[in-house]
């Protein structure tokens, strides 16, 4: 895909096979832009995007499925909960097609997954930053998307809470065979969660492979650039 945003130029060609992929790169590398293009929230100058063999975007064919038709959910750094709805109604928002009973059961399951059952009748303004992030995650998972995009969503959680949630989340995602792409600038996140890391630098894919390999080669490159020995090796 290729997209221009002012002076920034994103040009990426890749295929993610792993259930967990981390897009790693510094701020401004194009991680959020890439996720928004995958989600169908923005349009690219040139793009061909497919998920499980189903074409979502093909600029040559003038095809672009709408965001809600892609079976892709996204959680960004900002939880963006609907302020006029309760936590339960927020989680149920993407379940309009379900019967009431199934919808309520799914909402309860999702809130339990993110440890937010006790918050169900609260309004977003009554939640802490971490609670709001967990509810946003439950809302994104509720429609059972095929692909989950996470754009640095755990920044509001403290370390322990973040680790525990990530562990539960990974088990649940594996059980539901849901592919996940996590964008982060934090190497710890990349190492902790990833089977596969895509290194993004200035809008280009610099490397794609196992987390340890990609991160080690990036450290090597930075050490050479700074003229210091790679102390982390």
């Amino acid at each position: 895909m290729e997209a221009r945003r002012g002076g920034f130029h994103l040009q990426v060609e890749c295929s993610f096979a792993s259930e967990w992929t981390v897009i790693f790169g510094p701020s401004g590398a194009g991680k959020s832009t890439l996720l928004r293009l995958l989600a169908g929230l923005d349009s690219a100058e040139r793009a061909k995007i497919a998920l499980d063999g189903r074409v979502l975007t093909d600029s040559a064919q003038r095809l672009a499925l709408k965001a809600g038709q892609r079976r892709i959910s996204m959680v960004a750094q900002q939880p963006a909960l609907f302020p006029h709805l309760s936590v339960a109604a927020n989680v149920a928002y993407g379940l309009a097609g379900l019967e009431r009973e199934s919808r309520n059961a799914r909402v309860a399951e999702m809130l339990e997954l993110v440890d937010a059952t006790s918050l169900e009748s609260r309004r977003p303004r009554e939640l802490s930053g971490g609670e709001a992030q967990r509810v946003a995650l439950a809302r994104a998972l509720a429609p059972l998307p095929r692909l989950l995009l996470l754009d640095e969503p755990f920044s509001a959680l403290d370390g322990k809470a973040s680790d525990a949630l990530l562990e539960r989340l990974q088990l649940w995602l594996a059980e539901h065979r849901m592919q996940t792409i996590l964008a982060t600038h934090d190497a710890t996140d990349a190492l902790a969660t990833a089977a596969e890391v895509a290194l993004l630098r200035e809008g280009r894919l610099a490397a794609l492979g196992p987390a340890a390999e990609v991160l080690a080669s990036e450290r090597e490159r930075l050490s050479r650039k700074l003229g210091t020995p790679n102390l982390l090796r």
Partner: protein
Amino acid sequence: MDWQAFVLTLKLASVTTAILLAVAVPLAAVLVLGRGRWLAALEALAALPLVLPPTVLGFFLLVLLGPRTAIGRGITVLLGHPLAFSFGGLVVGSVIYSLPFAVQPLVAGFAAVDPALVDAARLLGAGPPRLVASLLVPLARRSLLAAAVLSFLHTVGEFGVVLMLGGDIPGATRTLSIVLYNEVENFDYSAAGRTAATLLGLSVVALAAIYLGGRPKRDRRG
């Protein structure tokens, strides 16, 4: 006090406001959520009645709805009478004349909704109608109230379009503004004073509804 004109004015303003909200909510949503250069032309068209003298608008509508045009003749065949010089004609004129007063507060209100919320709703499968009904309208309640009240008041106070398009037919097109004009022309200043005070009272009550009813509740948690 001409109670017949009073009731007719309220009826005209109520019908006009209801139609305007039904038209302006989707129109404002298209202007805020849509993409494309044609939106600028649409926005300019919706704002045109703001700068057009009411008598000019009334004249164009009088010609358009009269027997000289195919549209006017078609409407006459359809309704059995011409739309000009009827209550229906006044409603058409009022809707067009007050359109910007409904659209502009709604555009401002919808545009103020956080785009991240709109993105979240789109990702969760909300199409434009659901986006408007479940997100934009509830989050822009105050703008909706402002649009309703401004449309109502603007219709209550309109004179040029009403006179050009409706004339002065008691019970059909004579509104309070026309009554006030007639009373002043007849040097009946005490009657004119009562009519003017009624119009002023309507305006004050409606504006109070905007400023008191739409005022956000204070968070008492400190």
